């Protein structure tokens, strides 16, 4: 197991290097740069040039990349070019909100999707099945931004029961209850899409398992149908879900950009958009790196979890 993890981590290195290189090129190809961003007609072309020089923006890309990688290897993500805050701090502050939102959405989505998926599979080709299927499709086809606004309109503006956005009440730390109140709407928005997709997977996986011979064995032992489903079938059906959940993580980061934007959730997504808009190269690079690590890490975690959950699979 340990060698397996070590090997996977070893493979990460070239992949990450590739990702950062491609990303570096793409980001630098984007027109605009952090200096020109801050419009001031009194600035002379020379000083703008000097600024670029000072920030190293005039070096060849390879040199710039080398410098970035060099400082990265010393554990330093550099300083933001727009706020001059250490990038590590900027990103660090945003990770928890995004992780919180992502985890909450995943959990909510699974809490919805697993029972519905199972129900749908057990009642295959009945009205219930069609209803669940229809709902899941609707869940996957509502754009996040639309659902978000609609929920704000209903729950925050009309009913006034939930805050429209943000992560906590102004000023205070608000306490747990306050945070949860703020978490509800964005979580619902993100979870809706995930749940929609997951229901289909759980259903398909359950249908597959329901065909298996070992269920017949269980029945022939006189096991109650409830346990046949919820013990013998369920555990097998949930195994592939682990992989699928792992695949959600990159989508979560992506979906979060819009959701965080709508709900003013101070996470990675928001920072991404801001640093994109200000061409804050170090921050963009750091975000990208972290996202890539998150994706690769979650892949690895999924595989490990899978092998832990499924006795048949031994990672090697």
């Amino acid at each position, binding site marked *: 197991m340990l060698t397996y993890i070590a090997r996977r981590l070893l493979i990460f290195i070239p992949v990450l290097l590739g990702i950062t290189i491609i990303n570096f090129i793409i980001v630098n190809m984007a027109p*605009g740069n952090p200096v020109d961003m801050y419009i001031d007609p009194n600035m002379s072309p020379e000083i703008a040039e000097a600024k670029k020089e000072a920030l190293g923006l005039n070096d060849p890309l390879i040199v710039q990349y080398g410098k970035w990688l060099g400082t990265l290897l010393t554990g330093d993500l550099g300083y933001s070019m727009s706020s001059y805050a250490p990038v590590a701090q900027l990103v660090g502050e945003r990770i928890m909100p995004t992780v919180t939102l992502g985890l909450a959405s995943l959990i909510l989505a699974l809490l919805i999707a697993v029972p519905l998926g199972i129900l749908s599979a057990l009642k295959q080709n009945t009205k219930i099945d069609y209803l669940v299927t229809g709902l899941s499709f609707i869940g996957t086809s509502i754009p996040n931004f639309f659902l978000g606004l609609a929920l704000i309109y209903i729950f925050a503006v009309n009913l006034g029961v939930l805050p429209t956005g943000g992560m906590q009440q102004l000023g205070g730390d608000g306490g747990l209850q306050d945070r949860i109140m703020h978490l509800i709407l964005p979580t619902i928005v993100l979870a809706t899409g995930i749940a929609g997709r997951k229901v289909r997977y759980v259903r398909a996986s359950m249908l597959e398992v329901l065909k298996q011979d070992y269920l017949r064995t269980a029945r022939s032992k006189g096991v109650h149908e409830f346990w046949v489903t919820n013990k013998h079938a369920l555990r097998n059906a949930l195994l592939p879900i682990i992989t699928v959940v792992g695949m959600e993580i990159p989508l979560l980061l992506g979906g979060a950009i819009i959701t965080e934007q709508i709900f003013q959730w101070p996470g990675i997504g928001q920072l991404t958009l801001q640093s994109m808009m200000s061409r804050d190269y170090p921050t963009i690079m750091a975000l990208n790196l972290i996202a890539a690590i998150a994706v690769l890490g979650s892949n690895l975690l999924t595989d490990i979890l899978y092998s832990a959950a499924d006795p048949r699979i031994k990672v090697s």
Partner: protein
Amino acid sequence: GGGGYSTTNEAAADEPSSSGASGSGTAVIGIVNPPTTFNPINPNDTASTQAISVMNDSLMVVNEQLELEPRLAESVETEDNQTFTVHIQDKAVWNDGTDFTSKDVEYTLNMIGNPSVTTNINLSFIEGLNDSGKLEAGQDSVSGFKSVDDKTFTITTKYPVEITYFNDSFSGKIRFLPEHILKDTAPEELDKSPYMQNPTVSIGQFSFVKFAKDQYVQYKANDSYYLGAPKLSELYLKILTAPNLVAQLQTGEVDANMDRTGLIPVEDFEKVSNMTNVSAEFSPISTPVSVMFNVNKMTDPEVRKALELAVNRPQIVEKLLKGNGEIVDNMLPSTHPFYDSSVEPYAYDPEGAKQMLEDAGWDFNQTIQLSVPVGNKVREQAAELMAADWKSIGLLVEIQKFDFPTLLQKLVSNDYEVGLVTIPYTADPSSVYNFFTPNSAMNMTGIDDPKLNSLIEQGAMETDTEARKEVYSQIQQYFHENVPQFAMYVDKLMMVRSNSLDGEVGPDMLNRLYLWEKSE
């Protein structure tokens, strides 16, 4: 000639007793764009400038009539339009109790001039700073600065300038660094110093408490404020999306929207006007949205003029802005003191425009690229209307939307044909016209006409106000005729204030925060 302002602060005079007393109540101002930095000498963007000015006063402030009023300064005076004497308010103290003195001003100026400090402030008109606004190598202090005493100093400019110019470029613009806090920080470390992330020591109406990223900036009353302690105990700048801003005005979570960075979308005007818990009005002045021509590609002034004539600007103002706007011809709105009302904006005339184009030999098979920045929906919609207008006279138009950095890069490097951009102006008109000289890093139109260059230079150098007005009239006339740029529209911004908030909102609202009151 000479001139000057002197002041006795009314509020302080009215209620001197309030100084030192704690206020009560919390006000929340909604903004859509988050501030990115609190560095007083490097405010990157409007939101940052606003966030900084809540806690840091400048020597003077601009009021709603675009006039400069003294603030930290008791007076700014000059005899020869080259040496400006500034008296600092006696009572001005940093919020930690340290006296605010000429030393702070000197330190700040030296930092601005220091080549290794990042700043977007350019004071190249001050003696001792080179054309880039930096100290020459080997120097570490600005020779144009002279400290007279703790509360008095003089600034010498390289050449005579009008006092408005001086105040606009210096007194109203510079906010100060606390020398007693930062003096041991090496200049090259200044940008990254912890102070810039957590600027609790400041000299303004409120003091910084906390910046919850992407959510809000929290301030508390500066009880030792030299104009008297604010009546509120707390103030927030709350960062929201536009729909949420409207929603929260309705729910009462937000008390007012910020000028310029807290826009109410046009489609919500009606909804907001109908809200019972808030009162809404339109700000008297706003910024023209410029249509920029790349004169190297759109070389013929007649063509550019024709394109201006072909835009149905009344429709934009009447229907899109629902009447809350005006039509002007170029960079300044009609409320600007330097606005020349004798320059009549062209009337909408599609037929005439078409004729002019034909006369100019325009190739109607040529596609015009219209570059539009994303982020302001009304501006985008107006661009679509403009494109439709142009199409209706037989032109081929292609809209390309870019995020702001991309667009700016294209404009600055003259890699576009027609572009939209909003350029904020200040009380002194020279700042906006500086965009049209080759001396600027930001010459978006690429225009380099000796006549215009000399007019703009004259405008900056002229010390007599009336003479300046004359020069700027000529510039506006030049724009009217040559059309390197024209204004698509000027929209009046909706300013909303909760009924429970007692205070002024509007373009200069940040000047008067300390007078705001909040009833429950």
